[in-house]
């Protein structure tokens, strides 16, 4: 699977969290050319007034001035290190501590202050698409992690089918896979439900322990 690149930012909303004098430069006028509106959240007692719950990742982009210490309080996903919306760091003082703070906020792109108009499209393109790529990778990682955890259920289900239906390992696996596809579920989830159904099923005399012999291959319990 390849993530598609966002190339047209029309309809976007940039929240510019900047200090005094931060409105200098070409950021707002260039964003307007790109179809992105700009808003300046108020900063009260050093903290930007943003309603984090109202942020929408498909619309909002945070531009955070790295020279403002602790102005933005957003929760970054502890595993993916992703913020709720793309963050682009505005770099004034080029010091490791300031850059680290922006990285910790999940910034995926940077712009030097004062902002040069010719750099905005690139920064927006990189910031948003890196955010989308990392979000996509995180989702895939979560999926793979879930499936890894589910492998135990697959092994148990295969063993159960071997025991109950007298199939060899390959046939048992193929049968489960076929049935999972028919049920439009991934194999791991299907096997978990399969085991659950079998566990709850009333005992069928003679079935639970029966072993079918095929082709002279005697299978041991």
């Amino acid at each position, binding site marked *: 699977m*390849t993530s598609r*690149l966002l190339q047209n930012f029309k309809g976007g909303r940039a929240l510019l969290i900047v200090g005094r004098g931060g409105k200098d430069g070409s950021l707002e006028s260039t964003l307007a050319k790109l179809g992105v509106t700009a808003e300046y959240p108020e900063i009260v007692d050093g903290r930007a007034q943003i309603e984090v719950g109202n942020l929408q990742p498909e619309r909002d982009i945070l531009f955070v001035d790295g020279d403002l210490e602790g102005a933005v309080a957003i929760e970054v996903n502890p595993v993916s290190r992703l913020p709720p919306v793309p963050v682009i760091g505005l770099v004034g003082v080029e010091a490791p501590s300031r850059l680290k703070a922006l990285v910790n906020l999940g910034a995926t792109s940077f712009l030097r202050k004062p902002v040069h108009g010719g750099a905005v499209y690139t920064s927006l393109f990189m910031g948003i698409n890196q955010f989308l790529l990392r979000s996509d990778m995180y989702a895939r990682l979560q999926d793979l992690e879930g499936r890894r955890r589910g492998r135990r259920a697959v092994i148990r289900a295969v063993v159960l089918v071997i025991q109950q239906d007298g199939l060899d390992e390959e046939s048992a696996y193929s049968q489960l896979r076929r049935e999972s596809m028919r049920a439009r579920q991934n194999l791991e989830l299907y096997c978990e439900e399969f085991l659950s159904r079998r566990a709850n099923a009333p005992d069928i005399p003679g079935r639970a322990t029966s072993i079918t012999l095929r082709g002279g291959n005697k299978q041991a319990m």
Partner: protein
Amino acid sequence: MTQKHYRIGIMFSTTGSYSVVARSMLNGALLALQENAEAGGAVTLEPVVVNPSGDLERYRALSLELLGAGVRQVLGCYTSSSRKEVIPCFEKFDGLLWYPSHYEGFESSDNVIYTGASPNQHVLPLVEYLASRVGTRAFCVGSNYIWAWENNRIFREALTARGGIVVAERYLSVGDTEFDQVISAILDQRPDFVFNNLIGTSAYAFFRAFRAACRARGIDQVNEIPVASCTLSEPELAEIGGEAIDGHLSSSVYFSSLESPENAAFIAAYAKAFPEGPVSSADAEASYIAVKLLVAALEHAGTDDARAVRAAVASQSLLAPQGEVRIDPQTYHAWLTPRIARSTLNGQFEVLLEARSPIVPDPYLVQSSPRFASAMRSPLLRVVQS
């Protein structure tokens, strides 16, 4: 009335592989300067003409020379690579570059006024025309630099969105004239049309060689595999020559065959001023427009300071040879009127379609491109059978 006098730079490669168009651009600018001098307005302009000869290093050096000599306003560049080369100079020394040519967009420097067509004014109307009236299988050829790369990308995305396909893309160095392999590939593929982004001598050689190859194989090139361009203009038709001059589609905001009093006056004045040619072109008209707007902005600003002139030009409009033209105050690109035309045996273009009025420039295609890039359907990878 006190006249103010300014020196302005004019920087076109009047020698080199794309010199024919560049000379017509110089002529367009000189005609506007001549008219300004004859009108005796509030501003007199002294042109400082330089020729980078198509050499990117020379563009940069000459820009620095002009800016260093106190020239604040420069009209110049044809290729996007040359424009991108000099923009940092204008930004560093706060000069204003007037860029009078169609280009691929995705740029809006505060130190450039763009009087040529944006991509929504040339390539998108062409895709619309081709997909609805010619076909949906395209073969793209171009000169190997940013213009062709980006114009082909925009073309490919727009065509793909309409269910079309680019069967192949081929790029050659600027000035390259060896087309045997490319033409052989085109004839093997038999696309519905060729989308051409070659410039200068490469383009002229391609048109001639492609027509000859089709003729040798009994193919009616004009009707079976037409060539469509966003660059082709009247002086270039003369360079292609009689054997292959007709039947080529061109998307542009200006053709010298337009019927209007303003264009008739422009064509007559141009022909009188430059009897040796090259004849006028869309880029010559864009240069003419640029000087006219520059004069108006200088008069309005009362100075040649870049920021003041830039602010002043936003309120200017002009009844140009192509029709009404004005500068968009947000992007500093021009409102222009898109047209599609076909070349004729007499070295002119017959206009097939035109917009009813000027359309807003959209250099970033904010209003006219999909939110996400289209999934890449690479024309380079194809299923082959052994």
